[in-house]
Every structure is written in C-alpha cells, then in structure tokens.
C-alpha cells in the first residue's frame, strides 16, 4: 500500500460484509473459546478451595454463550446495521508508531524513540506534512526530556545505557 494510494482513495479500508451484531457476537465467542482453551489445564478446585481455573473458565463459557446469543439476535434482526469500514491507514501507522517507541526506548533511548515514533505515527493522517512533523517531533522530544527527566526525575533512558 503506497502513501499516494491511500491519499487518493481516502476511505481505503477493509469491509466485512456482515451485520454488526453477528460479527460482534462471533468476535466475543472467539475470545471466549480462546480463554476456555488456554485455561483448560488449570484445576477448577472445589468450592472450599476454589482453584485457579474456576473463574476464568466460568466467565469464558459465559462469554461464549453470550456472544452466541448476540449473533443469533443479530441474525434475526434483518434491519441491523452492517459492520462499518475498517480503515487501514490510521491503525497501521498509529500502532507502528507505538511499536517503534517500544523497540527504541531501551535500545537507543528516548532521543531516537521520541521523534521516530511521532514521525511514523503522523502518517496516520493524510494531512501530515513531513517537514513540520519532523521539526515538531524533535522539539517535543526535547520538551519530554526536560519534563520527564529533569522535572520529574523519572528513570527514562534518554541515550540507552549512558544517560
């Protein structure tokens, strides 16, 4: 997906041709099933000594059943709304920005993590101007170093392993 492409077609995204309630129910059912599977080896215990598996499995089963009911209701409600379009550009760049921060903060330090995360994330909006964002990112990082490192004295690595 190139940038220009995204800008030309502003509403570039993924659409799921399904009614919202059906999809919402399936979503929760999948999560519930995942937790049922993951907690299957945990002992349930007894009432007197409730085990680690009791609550997760009980709640997960309730979630599966609840999701199923929601899907069925959605299936019956013929006029329900459809799932709205999933945008790709916004989520992709915002999450990429956060990931950049996570990867860089301990390995290189805030001095790189700050501007890189901001510049990457800023592509989430088609209005972004690269020069402006770069300057702004550097300034904001300086502000953050001053604020967090000096005023609040938090142990945030500005330059990893040295400062």
């Amino acid at each position: 997906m190139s940038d220009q492409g995204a800008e030309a077609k502003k509403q570039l995204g993924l659409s799921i041709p399904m009614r919202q309630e059906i999809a919402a129910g399936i979503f929760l059912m999948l999560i519930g099933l995942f937790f049922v599977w993951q907690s299957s080896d945990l002992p349930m215990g007894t009432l007197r000594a409730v085990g680690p598996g009791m609550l997760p499995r009980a709640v997960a089963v309730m979630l599966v059943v609840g999701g199923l009911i929601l899907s069925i209701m959605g299936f019956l409600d013929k006029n329900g709304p459809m799932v709205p379009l999933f945008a790709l550009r916004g989520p992709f760049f915002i999450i990429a920005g956060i990931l950049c921060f996570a990867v860089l903060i301990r390995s290189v330090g805030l001095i790189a993590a700050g501007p890189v995360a901001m510049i990457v994330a800023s592509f989430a909006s088609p209005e972004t101007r690269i020069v402006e964002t770069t300057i702004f990112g550097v300034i904001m990082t300086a502000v953050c170093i001053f604020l967090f490192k000096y005023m609040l004295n938090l142990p945030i690595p500005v330059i990893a392993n040295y400062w």
Partner: protein
Amino acid sequence: METLVANLYHGFGVALTLQNLGLCFLGCMIGTLIGVLPGVGPIATIAMLLPITFGLPPTGALIMLAGIYYGAQYGGSTTAILVNIPGEATAVVTCLDGHQMAKQGRAGTALGVAALGSFFAGTVATIFIAAMGEPLTKLAQLFGPAEYFSLMVMGLVFSTVLAQGSVYKAILMVLLGLLLSTIGTDLETGQERITLGIQNLSDGLDFTPLAMGIFGFAEILRNLDTPEARDVVRTAIGKLLPSWDEIKQATPAVLRGTFIGGLLGILPGNGAVLGPFASYTIEKKIAKDPSRFGKGAIEGVAGPESANNAGAQTAFIPLLTLGIPPNAVMALMVGAMTIHGIIPGPQVMTKNPDLFWGMIASMWIGNAMLVIINLPLIGMWVKLLKVPYRMMFPAILIFCCIGIYSVNNAMEDVLSCAFFTFVGYLLIKFGYEPAPMLLGFVLGKLMEEKFRQAMILSRGSFWTFVERPVSAVLLAIAVLLLIIAAMPSIRAKREEVFVE
C-alpha cells in the same frame, strides 16, 4: 466538638507555616503536572521524589507528597476531559461525559465544574476525616471478604448503566473485563494463568496500557476515521466557566457524589475506585432524561469528579487511623512516613499530633490551592485544543508512550498497549463500549480475591454471602438495580412487538 476545633486550629497552625505552605503548593503543582501527563501516575513520581524529601522535616515532606497525590487526581480529569484518556480507573467515568462536553465546545465548563466540585468534595471530606475518622474506621472493619465481594457485585451491576447503547452488550463487556483480569499468576497457588508463556503477563495486565490503548489511542483512531467529529473541538471554544444555571444543575450531583465517594473511600482495598462509577449510576438513574448522559451531561462530570476527590481524601482514614494503606499510592505514603521514622499505626494521632492534624489541615489548603492553580489554567488548556489535530495526535502518542513506560520501566507495557489499541479499534467497529469493560477489569481482580477468601473462610459455603447482614443488603441492592436496569429494555422489546 470543642476538641475538634482545637485540633483543627492546631493543624492549621502547623500547615500555615511558610515552609509547609510552600511545600503544599509545590506538591499541588507537581501533582497537577503529572496528573495532566497521561500515564505518569503519582506512584512513579512520589517514588522518584522520595529521596528529595530526605532533607525535609517529616510533616512537610508528607504534606508535599499528599499534595502530589490529590493534585494528580485533579490533573487527571483534565486529560480525561480534553483528550479522552483516563490516567487511572476513576477517570474513566469523567471521559464519558466530560470529553463529549469538550467536543461540544464546553471544555471550559467541564473543567470548571470538575474543579469546583472537587474543591467542595475536598472540603467536606477534610471535615469528615477530622471529625469522624475514628468511628468510620470501625465501619470499614465490618467489611470482611464476603461483604467486599457483594460490594463488587453491586459495582458490576452499576457498570451496565455506564453504557449508552445496549445493556446486553455492556454486560458482555463486563464479562470480557473480568476475563482479562484473570490473566496472570494465581493468587493462591502461584500457577500461571493464560499467560501464553509470556513472562511479563505473569503479574497480569496493567491498567494503564489497557486503558490507554482501548480508550485513548482507540479514540485517536476514531477521530482519524471521521475528520468532521474532531473539528468541532477546534472550532468552537465556548465560555471558560460554568454559568449560574449550570452550577445549579450540577450542585445536587456534587452533594451526592461527595457523600458516596467519601463513604466508599474509607473501605480497605481501594473501595474508592467504585465511587465515581456509583455516582454516575445514580445521576443517570434519577435524571429526568437519562438519554442526555454520554452526550455531555454536566451532572455526569460533576458527580463522579466530586466522588473521586472525596474518595481520594477519605482514603487517608485507614492510613492515619490504623496504619493500613488502602491503595498503592497510600502504600507509598507509608513508605515515605517510614523513611522519616514515623511508622503509621493507630497511635499516629496521639504520638504525632503535628503530623496528623497538620496533614489534615493541609489537605483543605491544598484543595483551595488546586482551585487557584487550575481555574486560570483552564483558559490555557482550552487553547491547546486549537492545535491542529495532525500535530496533536502524535504529541498525545508520545506522552502516552513515555507515561506507560514509566509505570514499570518496561517496554513490554508499551507493546501491550499497541495490542490493545488494535483491540480497542475492533471494539469500536463492533459497537462495543469500553467503559464497562474497564470497570469489569478493575473490579475483577478484587472480586476473585475476595470471593476465594470468603469461600476459604466459610469452608466452601455460599450461605456466607447471605448470612452476613451487610453482605445480604448489598446483594439485594444489586439484584434490585439489575431488575430496574432490565425493565426499560423489556418494555422496549414489548413496544417493538406491538409496532410490528
């Protein structure tokens, strides 16, 4: 009564010295700052400032640290209102109507009402602590594991009222929150649960990355999806202070919020978390037109904000009267006292009257200072909303990332936040609301802990929840609330049937 006046007089004598006033002001300033910065909580800040207090006399040091704590509560609501990012669980409720008000150009009003309501609540709570600290401690002692569990059940029923849309979907979200709260090492057996072998999950998910991802960052994505919605924030500014009419509208909510929040704040094990949620529930239930809630109802900001501040204040009661910290910040205050050679316990009041009454007096002074600090700032905050969104959101992002990192000094928290941003976006698309989920998450851990303790103590008998009177009453209220909550939807269903 006379001794109370004498004691308070003594306290103000201590708190009004130039040094202590200065420290109180400093604490409030720092607190406001960290409260506004998303993610950076009072815990990390107080911990880092502890060494600085070495050189101070104990009373002054604690006055400053307390200032940071309630200053942060104030500042936190600013972020919640302006950018929809809850720094901690209690601010989730403020997001609901506060941010809507900001979008309608009423950010100034929301911030003003939050500040004034909090000030009122702080004043009442201060008197409350001074006058009734001791007897209230006894009340809190009535709450054993069974009572606590029933209280949590009641809290979860509250949470369904938070939702604007379908109550059924809200219940599902509560369940999801409960489920997420079970991730991590089992309290009793130490077994790892649903951690997928990831070491950082062994202590469970942290609230900050979860809330920031699902609330804050997902809000950014929602705004990027619909450019029109966010422009409202930029264009209309509105007036800075609430009008007389709005104050009149908010006053009863403030009174109720103060009472509820103050009461819940005394409970051990962080009962204060429930305060804002309970207040919001009540305001929405008794409102003539509940549909205004979630769309910028002023009571939805005034009540919970007052409850929050009252609870933050009365949370000092168990600390000052028994030496038991009810939450993580208070545990840190214990640490601060200990470093200064004062180990908090039932005798602090008699052995260190300067500290005890000085701190109580300083709480009121601090609250007054916060209003003075915050009211002029409102103008500045509102102007901040004029910054073009294309620059605003990367700035929010970087502040949040640093904030999340600073909670545990762990980049893994930042990674998990990225994951929850994605989940939050999915939830929006599927028409789920995140607030009930966050409440379920926060209460889930406490609830399971208390449930299992109660079951161990009763040797496996469910009757313990009904046999104990306080617990039975709380459960009855929960059931009643659930019936009331279910009724409109039952009615609506019936109407639907008739239409067809």
